[in-house]
């Protein structure tokens, strides 16, 4: 076993852990992987960097047996293999941790781990418990095997996912956007785990769209763009160059020769400066929550006695760790679930008894964070999804009949305005990348005269450029007089966007902070303080 700090001298003497040679994968309308070749070595963290839709996940899904390539070879330890199922991949020692959890929340930690054990009919809890202790100590983790999985923090759930991926003795571990749902502390813990795994000689593939992550965690960085491998940074360069130099080089690789013209580069590299509240706000309240209480569903926290006043054209942030009542509160405002107590007022009138469609007519919009299962219908076209909240209304429907021409022309207009990358308005939404699906959702929510918009994690899982464009859209809307509530777990995002930030903890508002130089610290204090009660 080699130490983790230097590259193990395995290159010459042995075959690398994984070699992908000329991988091609085409989906209808998208060439997801265009002749990509990649080598992953033992004891190295290989970062796969690229924007959403660049083909990172497809490439790794090929390695983990979820997707079969159209052309190209996969070699493990120098041996050509055809991986035809996830099970086969696991058998070959390839473990993958997906972006979205695959754990069953109602089961205990140990039960979740034993689900992967396909052999035999009876579950061997004693053996599994031993394996858990063994893996836990090698990763430096202390996991309670009897804890109910759903009650664990997201960071702990992810640690459990890693343990699950290593359960059958993996040699290669793939982490797909592992930091997207973690708090800063969770990220630090993850970094430690990855370092340990590296030290034990595992080959780690780290998929990310965040530049600084790739630079700080990777021993080697491969940059993907539009399905092609556009560049790679070798360990020597990663060690010798400064952070800024590396950043510049990666941006140049990602955006090609046009990087100099790309207006976003400055934004991309700069840190976030606290944004000062706009003093010109009218004192007219747009949305008022008055002691709102939402009963928790199974595994939820609910919202308790939440009072909040959002002024017209203000951007109000709601900060907090995921699972602290954000969704319950957002759905209560949108009307998707009832409130047990309190009142919700829109421009002074109570809307607590109105249904979703009635609130929508009054100008209330809800940009859900579950854009794939809730915000869109994947089997319908982009055009249809854009008018889904207008069903039956003029000009898209007349006397109950659909008017395709009106829908298509509106869709074309919005595809242009919101820069939705789609082969056409009649492409099924399911065929688009996550960022473009989010743009479809935004196009729908922001195009039909919105007055108050609730954004739930609006840039969650999006790449740098789409994130930037979404934030710009939110700002533009506010400038035009739209009131916004931005729910986010990303504090930087809230400080970048908001006039004020409220902190939600355990379903309660623990404080509201005016944005400004000391806001970050104060919000942090409120988040921590709220947690300890």
């Amino acid at each position: 076993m080699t130490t983790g700090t230097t590259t193990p001298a395995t290159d010459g003497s042995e075959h690398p852990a994984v070699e992908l040679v000329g991988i091609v994968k085409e989906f209808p309308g998208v060439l997801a992987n265009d002749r990509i070749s990649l080598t992953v070595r033992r004891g190295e963290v290989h970062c796969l960097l690229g924007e959403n839709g660049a083909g990172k996940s497809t490439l790794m899904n090929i390695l983990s047996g979820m997707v079969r390539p159209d052309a190209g070879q996969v070699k493990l330890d120098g041996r050509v293999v055809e991986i035809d199922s996830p099970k086969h991949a696991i058998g070959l020692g390839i473990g993958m941790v997906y972006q979205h959890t695959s754990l069953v929340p109602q089961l205990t930690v140990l039960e979740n781990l034993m689900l992967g054990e396909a052999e035999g009919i009876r579950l061997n809890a004693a053996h599994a418990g031993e394996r858990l202790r063994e893996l836990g100590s090698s990763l430096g983790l202390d996991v309670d095997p009897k804890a109910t999985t759903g009650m664990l923090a997201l960071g702990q759930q992810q640690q459990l996912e890693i343990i699950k991926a290593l359960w059958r003795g993996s040699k290669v571990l793939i982490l797909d956007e592992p930091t997207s749902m973690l708090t800063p502390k969770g990220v630090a813990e993850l970094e430690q785990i990855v370092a340990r795994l590296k030290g034990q000689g595992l080959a780690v593939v780290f998929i990310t769209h965040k530049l600084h992550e790739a630079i700080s965690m990777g021993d080697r960085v491969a940059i993907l763009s539009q399905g092609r491998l556009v560049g790679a940074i070798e360990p020597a360069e990663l060690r010798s160059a400064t952070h800024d130099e590396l950043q510049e080089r990666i941006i140049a690789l990602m955006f090609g020769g046009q990087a100099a013209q790309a207006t976003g580069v400055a934004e991309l590299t700069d840190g976030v400066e606290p944004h000062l509240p706009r003093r010109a706000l009218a004192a007219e309240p747009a949305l008022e929550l008055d002691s709102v209480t939402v009963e928790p569903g199974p595994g939820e926290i609910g919202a308790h006695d939440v009072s909040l006043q959002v002024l017209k054209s203000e951007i109000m942030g709601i900060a907090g760790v995921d699972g602290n009542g954000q969704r319950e509160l957002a759905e209560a405002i949108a009307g998707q679930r009832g409130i047990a107590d309190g009142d919700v007022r829109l421009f002074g009138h109570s809307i607590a008894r109105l249904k979703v469609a009635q609130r929508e007519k009054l100008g209330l919009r809800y940009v859900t964070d579950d854009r794939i299962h809730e915000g869109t219908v994947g089997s319908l076209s982009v055009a249809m999804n854009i008018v889904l909240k207008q069903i039956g209304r003029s000009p898209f429907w007349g006397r109950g009949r659909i008017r395709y021409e009106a829908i298509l022309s509106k869709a074309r207009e919005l595809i242009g305005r919101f820069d939705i990358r789609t082969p056409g308005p009649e492409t099924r939404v399911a065929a688009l990348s996550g960022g473009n699906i989010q743009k479809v959702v935004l196009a729908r929510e922001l195009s039909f005269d919105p007055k108050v918009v609730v954004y739930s994690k609006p840039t969650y899982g999006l790449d740098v450029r789409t994130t930037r464009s979404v934030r710009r859209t939110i700002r533009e809307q506010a400038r035009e007089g739209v009131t916004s509530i931005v729910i986010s777990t990303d504090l930087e995002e809230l400080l970048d966007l908001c006039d004020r930030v409220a902190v939600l903890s355990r379903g309660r508002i623990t404080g509201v902070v005016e944005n400004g130089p000391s806001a970050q610290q104060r919000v942090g204090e409120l988040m921590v303080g709220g947690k300890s009660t």
Partner: protein
Amino acid sequence: MTETTAAAGLREPPRPGEMTGGQAQLGRVGDFFLRSILPLVLALGTGAIILAAIGVDPIQYYKDVYSGGVQFAAWQDSLMRVAPLLLIAVGLIVVFRAGIWNLGIDGQFLLAAAVISGIGSRFEEHLPNAINLLLLFLIAGVVGAAWTIVPALLKARYELNEIITTLMMTFIGINLAQILVKGPFQDPTTTTPQTRAFDFTALLPSIPGTESASRRWPGVHVGVLVAAAAAFVVWFLMSRTSLGLRLQVLGASMRSARHMGLDVPRLIIVAFLLSGFFVGLAAATEILGVKGYQRADWNPAFGLWVVPLVFLARLHAIGVIPYVVLLSLASIGGDYAAQNAGLTPQFTLLLVGLTLLFMALTEWIARRAAGGSYLPGASYRRHRAEGAG
């Protein structure tokens, strides 16, 4: 759009012409063959092997199915069988598209049949024939719809699984229909448990030109046209109206439907009532067009026959017609062929069962090869070839 992308310093997105065109076309044809034709071929092939194994000449058997279903003036019978099967099929398409499993078809069917055969023959003398028939169709539809109300409300209000509730309601419906036939609707002039037979003149008129000299009834009844009209109506409803889109959004995801502000409980009830209504109409065509009375032990169990068909047709109301015609032919001709071969008439049902089995298999293959499933969002997906982007 090209300008904006260039300004942002980006590469071109995939061009619209590249993706569709020949490859997608081939994909769709292949997909159609895989999902909609192959299961039938495999079922007929396996059926032939089974026949050969039990000593029946399969070629002769399938020949007999054809001649029993088409020749010897049997095509009228086959065509008349289309009416109830097609009406049930379109009723199922409405609910299945809404993502709801109405499996209580037989209960709804028999109860509607019992009510109209019981009361129909009583007031046939008092009303003009056309109005009488219209009224009976309406009553049958309402009874069929009414029998879905309990599962509909239970699902709409308490999200109770409708597979279980509709199956339970179908048992109650079948038995209730028997009680009605043996009890209040019993023909007093006979000891056989059956309703009073309609007068020939009070039954559905036949389509001119379909008469056959050798037959008891004059020709193919107009119920077939009613069924064809219903198929068109459902196709229009699902692909062109706002209600159709709402039902399909509900079918795609209940979460999305709620998020979009749709009245989910109301849509569930509407879908159930519509399907029950069409099943009731199916019963009316069979009683008023073919049977003329109802025996207590009569249960054609059409529901089971139709379920695989609507999936073969990918829940398309017009697309299901050829399958229904084929099945009608097989069910009429199958009786004759089975008789000739000394088999039970249930052999046709075996073929239907095999079709379902092979559908499950081809579905598995198709999902790997082409993606998607038997439950498409097809009608609203691509309404015409459209290249602009």
